[in-house]
C-alpha cells in the first residue's frame, strides 16, 4: 500500500480545511453583527460555504471508499488509536455541523437557497423553539469542531517538529495520483 496521498485526497483535504476555518471565523463574527444588508450577505455566504462542505464530505467519502487510504506512519498504539478517534470525530463534525446549520435555518423559516440559485428543501417545518435547539447545537458544534481541528493541527506539527516523520509532509506533497 502506498504511503502517499493521491493529489485528489490532498486537494480535498486542504480545500475543506480552508473552507471550514473560514466558516468558523465568519460564523463567530457574523453572530455579533447588527441586522444589516451586509450581515444578510455574510450569513448567505456562510450558508453556501457550509453546504459546499457538506457536498465535499460526500465527495471525500466516495473517494475514500473507492481508493485505499495510506496507512498511518509507525507510531505507538495509543497514538494510533487517538489519531483514529480524532479523524472519525473530524469526519463526523464535517457532516453534523453543516446539517445543524441547515436544520437551524429551516426551523427559523429561512430556506437555504444555494448560491442564490438552487433552493434547498427545508429539513423541518418552521418551529422557532426547535430553531433555538439547533442554534445551540450549531454553536456548540463550532466550538467542538474548532477544538478538534486545533488538536489535529497540533498533532501534525508535533509529528513534523518533534518526531521528524513524514506525517505532515505527505499531506503537503503533490504526488501523482
Amino acid at each position, binding site marked *: 500500500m502506498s504511503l502517499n496521498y493521491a493529489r485528489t485526497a490532498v486537494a480535498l483535504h486542504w480545500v475543506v480545511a480552508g473552507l471550514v476555518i473560514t466558516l468558523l471565523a465568519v460564523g463567530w463574527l457574523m453572530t455579533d453583527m447588527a441586522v444589516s444588508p451586509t450581515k444578510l450577505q455574510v450569513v*448567505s455566504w456562510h450558508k453556501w460555504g457550509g453546504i459546499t462542505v457538506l457536498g465535499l464530505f460526500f465527495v471525500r467519502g466516495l473517494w475514500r471508499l473507492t481508493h485505499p487510504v495510506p496507512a498511518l506512519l509507525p507510531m505507538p498504539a495509543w497514538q494510533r488509536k487517538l489519531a483514529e478517534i480524532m479523524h472519525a470525530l473530524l469526519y463526523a463534525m464535517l457532516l453534523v455541523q453543516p446539517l445543524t446549520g441547515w436544520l437551524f435555518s429551516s426551523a427559523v423559516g429561512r430556506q437555504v*437557497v444555494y448560491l442564490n440559485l438552487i433552493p434547498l428543501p427545508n429539513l423541518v417545518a418552521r418551529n422557532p423553539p426547535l430553531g433555538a435547539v439547533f442554534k445551540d447545537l450549531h454553536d456548540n458544534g463550532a466550538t467542538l469542531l474548532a477544538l478538534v481541528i486545533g488538536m489535529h493541527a497540533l498533532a501534525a506539527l508535533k509529528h513534523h517538529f518533534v518526531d521528524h516523520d513524514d506525517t505532515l509532509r505527505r499531506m503537503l506533497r503533490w504526488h501523482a495520483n
Partner: protein
Amino acid sequence: MRASLALAPAAFAVAALAADGNLDLQHSTLVATFRQQAVSIDAPFRRFEGEIDYDPALPAATRATLSVDMTSLDIGDEDSNAEVRKQPWFDSAHFPRATFRSTSARSSAAGRFDAAGELTIKGQARPIEVTVSVQKTGTAFAYDGSFELSRQDFSIGDPSWNQVLDDKVRVHFHLLAAGH
C-alpha cells in the same frame, strides 16, 4: 349559581360579537411574504383585529375593516423584529397600527368578490383592490386572498436594503368570521 348568572351576560356578549362578524382571532392568519435575495420568507402578524359584514345574498353590501398591530410582525428572530419597528421601516412608535377599510365590493363569481378599499400604513393611505374567496365553514365564513404592495409606496424600508430586499411584499390573509 351566582357564577353562572354573572357569566350569562358575558356569553351573550360573545355571541353578539361573533354574530357581528368580528374576526375569530384564534383561526385567522395574516402573513406578509417577502423576498430577501432569493429567499422567500413568511412573516405572520401575531396581533390584529377586524370585522367582516358579509351576506351571501348581498355581496355588494360587504363591509370589512381590519386593524393590525405593526409591532407584532414576526420575521423569525428578535433582531429582525426589532429592526422592522424602527423609523425607516414601520416607525411603529408613531404609527403603531395599519388599517384596511373597504369602500366597495362586487361579486365576481360564485364564492368570490372583489373588494376595493383603503390601506393605511405608516399614516399613508393607498387604494387597493383584492379578490376574496369565501367559503362557509359551519356557522362562520372563511375569507381567503392575497394582495401585493410596494414598500416604496408606503415609505417602508431603508434604501440601503433595496439591493437585498424586494420592493414587492405579498400579504396573504385567511380570516374567519361569523356570518349572517
